[in-house]
């Protein structure tokens, strides 16, 4: 077995997810992880697929990509399940929209030891008064205090919240 990461992007239209996953399923490929979302007028699919060495994923998806005008990108991945870190911090950020919020926050956090596992941002509010919202989860490799200090030093025009994720096991 082999593992690949697929990225598919194209104009959003009905049935993309079903078409892509059905084609893979019929060829015996199995989905390990998936993240899909609408980005503006586009739809983006990221899949981690495990499959037989002999399967040509590009070939399997070529017809769908052509019919639906999807761009396909394929990367090989290592076939392992140990690369699954559990996040230990969660950060939410919001404020009046301006350029550079993500860059500023993530740069500060990166220096302070944050390893981002998952990040999402979106715009809300009204057209003339947009607000920016970001949520992320990650690993605090240099401790939580280091991250908190980094966030405290950020511009005061954004609201930032850091929460420790204390995973319960039972």
């Amino acid at each position, binding site marked *: 077995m082999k593992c690949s990461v697929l990225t598919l992007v194209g104009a959003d239209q009905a049935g993309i997810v079903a078409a892509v996953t059905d084609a893979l399923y019929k060829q015996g490929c199995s989905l390990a992880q998936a993240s899909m979302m609408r980005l503006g007028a586009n739809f983006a699919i990221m899949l981690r697929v495990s499959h037989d060495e002999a399967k040509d994923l590009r070939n399997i998806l070529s017809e769908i990509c052509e019919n639906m005008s999807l761009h396909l990108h394929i990367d090989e991945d290592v076939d392992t399940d140990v690369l699954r870190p559990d996040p230990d911090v969660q950060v939410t950020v919001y404020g009046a929209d301006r350029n550079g919020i993500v860059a500023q926050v993530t740069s500060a956090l990166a220096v302070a030891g944050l390893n981002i596992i998952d990040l999402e941002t979106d715009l809300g509010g009204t057209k003339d008064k947009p607000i920016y919202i970001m949520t992320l989860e990650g690993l605090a490799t240099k401790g939580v205090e280091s991250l908190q200090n980094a966030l405290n030093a950020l511009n005061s025009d954004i609201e930032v919240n850091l929460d420790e994720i204390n995973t319960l096991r*039972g």
Partner: protein
Amino acid sequence: MEILTYPDQRLKQISESVESIDKDVLNFIHELEQARMAGPGAVGIAAPQVNNFQRIVIVDVSDMRKPVDNHGHLIMINPEIAAWDGMHMGREGCLSVPDFTGNVIRAEKIKLNYMDETGETHEFESSGFEARAIQHELDHLDGLLFLDRLVSRRSDLFKRKNYKK
């Protein structure tokens, strides 16, 4: 003692109240505690997780890396939550669902009553992480897993859901 893992359908079974605390029950509680201790970092365990369908759970959050409010080592027989207050999202994993964690909304504070292993009844309030652990374990007694209550990370910010009993 073997831990049942999902998709074993026995985990969806509803457990029965304990009628009397006899020697078998006490022996079982001892074994249940052994199973909890063997689980990596488990703060709680419920009888159905080891294929025993009696309403018995053990919760102990007194030994966390980062200390939380707690009532010590709790052996709870026929536990019942009498009141819920507030809600909070937190990350949960389960001995019966290996290699996956997810966000779940739980009541922030609960009032509950239970019987301990000597048959004495207790009523107390618990909040925060301990309350979460208790709710997680009590769910097992009703055939519910944290998977039945998953929410996305965004929902905490934007659409707090009502806590479903």
